[in-house]
């Protein structure tokens, strides 16, 4: 503390008495002494211990603190603020559907409600405790007592201040002596420590406050100004990660591409697709007219084809393939230029070889995109099987039916 002195106004000699300090070796003795001082009716006195001593509140006659009410109020404030904050941001200021939940979904808000309740209550408990105890106290006459340093170590102290209305040097001294303290000491007023706050500390706080405002000022500015510059990257290496994305430039390679071709003359594992009938739908440049040998039409394959058709094809082609899916209906209504999806029951499509249908699914046609990257080869053939079944359902010849089926028609 002596380093912080700015001036030494007066000498410590003949400073008036601040209080009487009694030292005890055990918490038990301190509690007994406290009861005596309490019963004698003193009000301006305190005890100092290295650790919390159970029962000292009662021995000192300290009333229940009002702090819990403050904490409760703060907790309810935090709770209400959390509810309001989330309601306003989610349902009013920026309504946004998340996972199909309502704009204001209370279950999702509960963690924040809990956190803010605890945060407000915790900070209030700590700050309230400090303020109600008159802390922080930068200087105190007891700081000058060498003996008192052991209050943070292994000794227990009781201080009766001279400004207590019942304080009388003689009678107070004899009261404390009756409690058999290990030592009894006069504590003089502090005449050496300046009461002024050091100027360095004041300027330091001003600078710190100014600096702390800067980020908020930047946020405020960013909300009202339009700029062509890129925004501030608070966490730069998260916004622009050191990695190469697909379809982007990469100067490391001579061709400048970040996506690499396989090394010439090599095939990746499982990528050898040398069966043209299965993978391309054609043999020697001509569309195959029958299913490749690896694909065996069966009831399971038909079910699979129906399911995949339902997932990938019905949005445009419709449930029965007439080209009246939801996407088509919507696009036609918008009338912004739309090549309608084909009706798969048209003559020319019915006559297309299966290989050509496979090619259409794989690479797309007109405005239909390529589905090769999305649908595995097996599933593409399954879809074709189902498409053939759909087509047949509209255009079967009487001659293709069995006698029994013909019987059922009647």
């Amino acid at each position, binding site marked *: 503390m002596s380093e912080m002195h700015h001036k030494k106004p007066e000498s410590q000699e003949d400073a008036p008495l601040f209080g009487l300090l009694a030292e005890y070796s055990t918490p038990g003795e301190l509690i007994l002494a406290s009861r005596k001082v309490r019963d004698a009716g003193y009000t301006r006195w305190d005890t100092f211990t290295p650790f919390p001593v*159970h*029962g000292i*509140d*009662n021995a000192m006659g300290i009333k229940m603190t009002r702090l*819990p009410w403050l904490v*409760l109020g703060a907790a309810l404030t935090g709770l209400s603020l959390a509810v309001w904050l989330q309601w306003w941001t989610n349902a009013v200021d920026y309504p946004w559907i998340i*996972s*199909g939940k309502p704009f204001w979904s209370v*279950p*999702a808000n*509960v*963690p924040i409600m*809990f956190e803010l309740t605890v945060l407000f209550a915790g900070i209030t408990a700590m700050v309230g405790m400090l303020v109600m105890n008159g802390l922080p106290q930068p200087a105190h006459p007891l700081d000058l007592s060498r003996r008192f340093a052991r209050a943070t170590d292994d000794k227990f102290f009781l201080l009766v201040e001279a400004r207590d209305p019942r304080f009388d040097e003689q009678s107070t001294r004899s009261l404390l002596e009756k409690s058999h303290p290990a030592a009894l000491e006069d504590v003089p007023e502090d005449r050496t420590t300046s009461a002024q706050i050091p100027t360095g500390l004041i300027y330091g706080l001003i600078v710190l406050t100014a600096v702390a405002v800067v980020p908020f000022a930047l946020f405020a500015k960013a909300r009202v100004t339009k700029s062509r510059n890129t925004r501030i990257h608070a966490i730069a290496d998260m916004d622009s990660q050191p990695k190469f994305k697909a379809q982007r430039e990469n100067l490391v390679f001579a061709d400048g591409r970040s996506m690499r071709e396989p090394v010439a003359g090599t095939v990746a594992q499982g990528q050898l697709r040398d069966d043209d009938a299965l993978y391309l739908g054609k043999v020697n440049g001509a569309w195959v007219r029958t299913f490749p040998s690896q694909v065996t039409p069966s009831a399971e394959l038909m079910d699979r084809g129906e399911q995949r058709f339902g997932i990938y094809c019905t949005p445009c082609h419709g449930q029965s393939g007439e080209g009246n899916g939801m996407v088509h209906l919507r696009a036609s209504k918008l009338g912004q230029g739309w090549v309608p999806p084909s009706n798969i029951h048209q003559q020319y499509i019915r006559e297309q070889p299966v290989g050509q249908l496979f090619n259409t699914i794989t690479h797309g046609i007109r405005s239909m995109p390529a589905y090769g990257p999305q649908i595995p080869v097996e599933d593409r053939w399954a879809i074709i099987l189902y498409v053939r079944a759909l087509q047949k359902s509209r255009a079967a010849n009487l001659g293709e039916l069995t006698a029994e089926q013909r019987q059922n028609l009647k």
Partner: protein
Amino acid sequence: MADSNSRNKKSKSQHPAKGSAHGTSAWGDVIRNSSDTHRLFVFAGGIGGVALLLSVALGMGDFKRFQYSYLVAFMWTLSISLGGLWWVTLQHLVNAKWSIVVRRVGELIAANIGLMAILSLPIVVPAILGNSELYLWVDSHRMLEDHALHHKSAYLNVTFFAIRVVVYFGFWFLLSQHFLKSSLKQDGESADTQTVRLRRLAGPAMMGVALTLTFAAVDFLMSLNPMWFSTIFGVYYLAGCVLAIHASLALTLLWLQKRGALVKTVSQEHFHDIGKMMFAFTIFWAYIAFSQFMLIWYANIPEETHWYLVRAENGWLKVTWFQLIGHFMLPFAFLLSRHMKRNRTALALAALWVLFVHYVDMYWLVMPTAFVEGPELHILDLTCWVALTGIFVAAVAYRARGVNLVAVGDPRLETSLAFENV
């Protein structure tokens, strides 16, 4: 038990804290009460026995309903015992001093786990014999046919279930007996040998309790709906167990004090601590219950949400709301103030309420499996609860006859007697 009693009498002369023949301790308190505990044993045992016979008679007519009602009451009483075992282990683990004067009562309650093993037979035996009315997974054909379930049949099958039940109850029985016997043995000693030994045991024991309790909750409760799963479920049941034991401790001690025992031993400070634990675990229960709910609600995956959907529709929605208000908000607000925890009447009311809502919680976990439309109260719910509670209380009272109700040999006893909260 007789062994430790004779040791008590022998050591009386050498050790002043051990008390006189009338069960009076060195600090002038009644620490034994054979006559009242005996009366309680006869009374509770009689009522429990009659209710059990009644339940069996009613259960003959509707065995499925009997099994469901019985399971609710069984899991409720089991949670008191298991909570006791967890609590005693915890006191040793953390070297708790405040609880020394209360610990013996906890040990006596925890030692009921052997009885719970016998009382589990109406649940376990029908499952082993192939009755799948309660546990669907007992029907192995059904499990294998269901695509979502056949992977689980490696765990959910009758043989493995039987093995697990034996392991759970075996472990709990041995541990609870060991805690009680060592503690009784210490009554006649003046050394801290048992204290040190039990503290060393408490660490591994706690891991064992945590694992067995988790898996038991999964087996007895979660597997009612074998499709559903929640990894936090064991902790959820534990939260209920901890609430149940503290409520039971409070009520037992208040009853003992009304009968003139432990009046100078267990003070307002100890009741305050029990109240604090009840308050803390009210919040803990809500925290866990909500954690389970929120993740399932947010992810919205059908195999998880259906469990909550049943409880959010028809008659069960009211019970679910009651869980939020009755199991969390009311006891939270009621126990928030320290004055309530230090007031015996208020604490007794809170303890009774906590035990009631804990029963509702067990009901809410079990019953929607079979009664999708809403709670259908049945006379068997009442008779099964009276039967198990009566037998449970009788067994604790029987065990409490003729033993010290305080661990007089514990070296930390003096600290505990002088304990103050502030």
